[in-house]
């Protein structure tokens, strides 16, 4: 716990919900996030991502285990923790009746800025998030993207050393998503530690220095996106065929060249072939297909995506071959 370099730690944190569980619990959750880094907490719905964030931000009591944020014990130093964090929740937690500016001024006041400073800060944030025009309108009339931006702005009224961001871009269009990403990046450049939950692998790949994969309330894999990709399996050749007949005919040929199990996307006529030696395998596969008289539409050699790592680790085998 006295680790100076860790902005967030969790050891064997447990939480179970009595009755019908609306949210997933935690089952021995461990986490260590270095100060000034972005950690992506990646997992499917019901993995416990939101529960983890709610416990670390003192909104929810844990059943067992220990956790600290910014060096303060989550259980016993709740107020200290709250002084050190910003929270961007899954829903835009802003007052819908008030205007965007009124919201920001209020949160500034609650963060102990004097009234003139709170007003100045509100205007700065509105400008930064391109909301200056909308600032005088009630939030109830905002689009989803504008609300998320305002929500993020409200968390940044004072820049907290640690920021929790729970699925920041769920339901946003690509442009708004880009803006949120830029804002998070800027914060990290200014020294903020960010714990980000997401279902989007692209988001974790883009933003996170390290990724923790969460399933059923515990972290099942942890590392940089690159580490995770190479840990799961090596390179693969991806081949697209022109139709189902070609795909079926190619499967036995490809199985001989593969270093592991094939993955088949039937609808797309796409087959993934895990291989051990990059270029030599490519030549071998191409030759074998040629000899069998099958001409593929496309053939590429590539590294695994986080998607594949994710599906493999979370035990989701939808894309695995079904014999």
């Amino acid at each position, binding site marked *: 716990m006295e680790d100076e370099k860790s902005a967030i730690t969790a050891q064997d944190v447990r939480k179970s919900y009595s009755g019908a569980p609306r949210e997933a619990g935690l089952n021995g959750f461990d986490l260590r996030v270095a100060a000034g880094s972005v950690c992506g907490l990646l997992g499917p719905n019901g993995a416990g991502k939101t529960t983890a964030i709610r416990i670390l931000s003192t909104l929810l009591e844990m059943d067992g285990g220990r956790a600290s944020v910014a060096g303060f014990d989550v259980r016993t130093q709740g107020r200290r923790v709250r002084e050190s964090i*910003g*929270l961007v929740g899954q829903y835009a937690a802003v007052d819908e*009746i008030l205007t965007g500016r*009124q919201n920001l001024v209020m949160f500034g*006041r609650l963060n102990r800025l004097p009234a003139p400073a709170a007003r100045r800060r509100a205007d700065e944030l509105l400008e930064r998030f391109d909301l200056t025009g909308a600032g005088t309108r009630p939030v109830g009339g905002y689009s989803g993207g504008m609300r998320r931006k305002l929500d993020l702005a409200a968390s940044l009224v*004072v*820049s907290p050393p640690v920021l929790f961001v729970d699925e920041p871009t769920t339901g946003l269009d690509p442009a708004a998503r880009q803006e949120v990403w830029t804002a998070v990046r800027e914060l990290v450049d200014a020294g903020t530690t960010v714990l980000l939950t997401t279902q989007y692998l692209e988001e974790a790949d883009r933003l996170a220095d390290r990724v923790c994969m969460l399933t059923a309330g515990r972290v099942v894999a942890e590392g940089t996106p690159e580490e995770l990709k190479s840990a799961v399996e090596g390179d693969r050749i991806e081949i697209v065929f022109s139709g189902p007949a070609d795909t079926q005919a190619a499967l036995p040929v490809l199985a001989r060249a593969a270093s592991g199990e094939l993955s088949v996307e039937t609808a797309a006529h796409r087959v993934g072939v895990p291989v051990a030696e990059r270029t030599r395998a490519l030549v071998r596969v191409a030759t074998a297909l040629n000899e069998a008289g099958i001409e593929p539409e496309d053939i590429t050699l590539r590294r695994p995506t986080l998607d594949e790592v994710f599906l493999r680790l979370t035990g989701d085998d939808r894309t695995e071959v079904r014999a």
Partner: protein
Amino acid sequence: MNAAVQPRSAGSLPAGSGDSPPLRFARALADAWTITLRDLAHWTRRPGTVVVGWVFPVMIVLIFGGLFGGAISVPGGGDYFEFLMPGMFTMTMLFGLETTMMAVTTDASRGVTDRFRSLPMSSSAVVLGRCAADMLNSVVGLAVMMVTGLLLDWSWHGGAGAAAAAVGLLLLLRFALLWIGIFIGLASGGPETVSAVQILVWPAGFLSNIFVDAGTMPAWLGAIAEWNPLSATASATRELFANPGMGADSWVEQNAVLMAVVWPVLITAVFLPLSARTFRRLKA
């Protein structure tokens, strides 16, 4: 663009948990005031909702006083309208419960409450701010009702001091109902549930001596109505305003003023800790 850099301690009241109790108290009050201002800003943003809330009891007065009043006689004699008004003041306090419930549950379901809880502000400030705004709302509502009453020939016949005490008892009831409202608002889990609870306000009002004297009801219903906390406040204010309707000789009726203090204090003693506990343990 260095918009991200703004130290939290820029305020005149620096943060920290090792602060002296007076400083913390001053902060809680400052936070509560911010929350109160926020609710008052809602009034200016949605004046319609607020004004309807104030005018609605006036409508009920006109319905009961004008339409039904002719058919209702007051035991022990006296004008029904004079009997009705103190009851309607009590009913107005009860209507305030709906405002509280709806505001609290909306904040909770939209995540606003969670944001407040994740701030280093005093958690009692959220509730204190709500309390101040709702009490203010009810004070205005009560004033509207009293002016309506005076315009329609209702008046108090006791001293000014007794009238002031009656107003005090009404607001004490409102204060107690606030905690029921906060508790239900937090525990209900959404505006849909609250709408269902709101309907129950009516049977609670009818099963009291607000509209008719409990002595005219079947004995067992009358007993329930007499012990209804709303009846205590209605009877006590009738007594203090020297309006008709005092006649029943049951113990509760005889000690209406006492009960109009005891009930709200009891309700507060139960629901204030319950609300505080629910606030700290909010789940979703």
